[in-house]
């Protein structure tokens, strides 16, 4: 906790008190000043201006050239520091912990969301190699940035008692450098994600029904959906919009050479952390649903193919399209494709060995 009193102000206070006292003595015999006249205490007016008591910032000038060099007192900094320590850091970590617990609770109560009739073995192509590379690049960079970011946000209360200052400084320093380096890579992969998935993520007619039925989380049975259902589309737009917010605010923080003032960097920092906490919280849900939360979902991002029964259950409108266009392949065909891929991988490896 910061308390605003500091010893620096004691001489100032003494000065002001002395001056007020003398002021009254001198003016004792004088007629009362005309209404609207400002106090004639020379120091008081100056210090009121310097401390920006009237709410206006006092821009001075300085021979020293630097960011905000002309501003004598930065009145916002203390507010930002308090907000970070008292609000962002504790409530951010509580929010993440609550989301994690809710998901664990959901898993315990509801279990894995299965498919009626189980998996058929007949597959449909869902994601191309390029799309999966984009997804996993973004995912890995995101997880790295989330961990290094949380180290900076929560490391002092949580990790310094465990590691000690020296070891934690090493970790935080490496984390900060890594965070700064991978931040722009996150932006690039985010833009690739934006362009490669945007067409299928525009909201359409059936999406409102999905929302009204609670996405199948409430009640029994699966809810109608297209190639992406409403929940996936919303996750996509959360990633894109909050991702852009985090990227832009991150660039403001990482490159201080454009003369941005402290208040801009403070606001950027708050937006950066708030956005990151929201994105990490929702991403925990995404990771859960994409892995052991639902049956057959992970397959799509692993091999690029998904089971037709999974499609029928979660994306019935797309399933209809698959049947119409005859896109469903048999289990043997799927095995052949996977085998071919594995073979070509082995072939490449043997070729490389021979090359050596």
């Amino acid at each position, binding site marked *: *906790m*910061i*308390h605003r*009193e*500091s*010893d*620096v102000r*004691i*001489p100032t206070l*003494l*000065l002001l008190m*002395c*001056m007020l006292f*003398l002021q009254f003595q*001198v003016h004792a015999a004088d007629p009362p000043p005309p209404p609207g006249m400002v106090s*004639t205490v*020379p*120091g008081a*007016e*100056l210090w009121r201006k310097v401390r920006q008591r009237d709410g206006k910032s*006092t821009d*001075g*000038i*300085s*021979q*020293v050239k*630097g960011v*905000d*060099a002309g*501003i*004598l*007192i*930065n009145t916002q*900094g*203390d507010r*930002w*520091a308090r907000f*970070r*320590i008292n609000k962002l850091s504790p409530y951010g970590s509580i929010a993440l912990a609550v989301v994690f617990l809710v998901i664990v609770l959901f898993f315990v109560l509801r279990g894995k969301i299965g498919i009626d009739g189980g998996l058929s073995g007949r597959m449909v192509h869902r994601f191309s190699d390029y799309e999966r590379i984009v997804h996993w690049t973004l995912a890995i960079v995101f997880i790295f940035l989330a961990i290094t970011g949380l180290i*900076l*946000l929560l*490391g*002092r209360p949580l990790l*310094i008692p465990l590691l000690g*200052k020296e070891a*934690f*400084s090493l970790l*935080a*320093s490496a984390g*900060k450098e890594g965070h*700064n380096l991978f931040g722009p890579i996150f932006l690039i992969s985010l833009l690739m994600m934006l362009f490669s998935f945007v067409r299928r993520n525009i909201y359409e007619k059936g999406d409102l029904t999905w929302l009204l039925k609670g996405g199948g989380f409430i009640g029994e049975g699966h809810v109608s959906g297209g190639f992406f259902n409403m929940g996936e589309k919303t996750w996509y737009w959360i990633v894109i919009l909050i991702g852009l917010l985090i990227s832009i605010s991150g660039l403001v*923080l*990482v*490159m*201080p*050479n454009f003369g941005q003032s*402290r208040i801009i*960097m*403070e606001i950027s*920092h708050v937006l950066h952390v708030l956005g990151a906490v929201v994105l990490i919280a929702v991403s925990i849900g995404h990771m859960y649903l994409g892995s052991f939360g639902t049956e057959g979902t992970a397959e799509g991002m692993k091999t690029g193919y998904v089971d037709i029964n999974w499609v029928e259950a979660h994306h019935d409108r797309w399933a209809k399209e698959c049947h119409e266009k005859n896109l469903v392949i048999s289990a043997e065909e799927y095995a052949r494709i996977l085998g071919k891929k594995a073979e070509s991988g082995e072939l490449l490896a043997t070729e490389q060995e021979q090359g050596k």
Partner: protein
Amino acid sequence: MARMKFYCDAERCVECNACVTACKNEHEIPWGVNRRRVVTIKDGEQGERSLSVACMHCSDAPCAVVCPVDCFYTTSDGIVLHDKDICIGCGYCFYACPFGAPQFPESSAFSSRGKMDKCTFCAGGPEQDHSSEETRKYGRNRLSEGKLPLCAEMCSTKALLAGDADVLSDIYRKRVINRGASAFNWGVNFNNSKLQG
């Protein structure tokens, strides 16, 4: 135990910037970094005042509160110092500081921040006093030689005072009383002297 403080007398500072120069020279501070600066308010207008400002060595320093790696510490003299071996150059102390004291040398591409540098009250850092390591990282350690910060020691108008807070208060109180008793009432405030002189 003494509590070391700076105080700048706005009625005396003439914006000569000698404190800035002396500090830069004494500690061999690199380009782009200024531990001390003089700010002039209402420049060229009536009521113009200048103040020399650096780290004010707060009793409860916002920089120390906000630092994510906890690199700040307060000496027994009430001087706020930091450990450059711990500092990671995040810039948070610069956002939080009321006085704009923390400075960052450019370390690499895109002006990314190096380790923070600020006024040490000429008291060095956590290393052994007068070691070459200490001098390289934090500049000279005058306090351990029994000397006060150079900026205040060489101030030509004695506007900038540095030392034990009690002594500074006494000096300042005397000045204020003398100003109040002068024939021109408020000393250099010509606006009022015309009214009452």
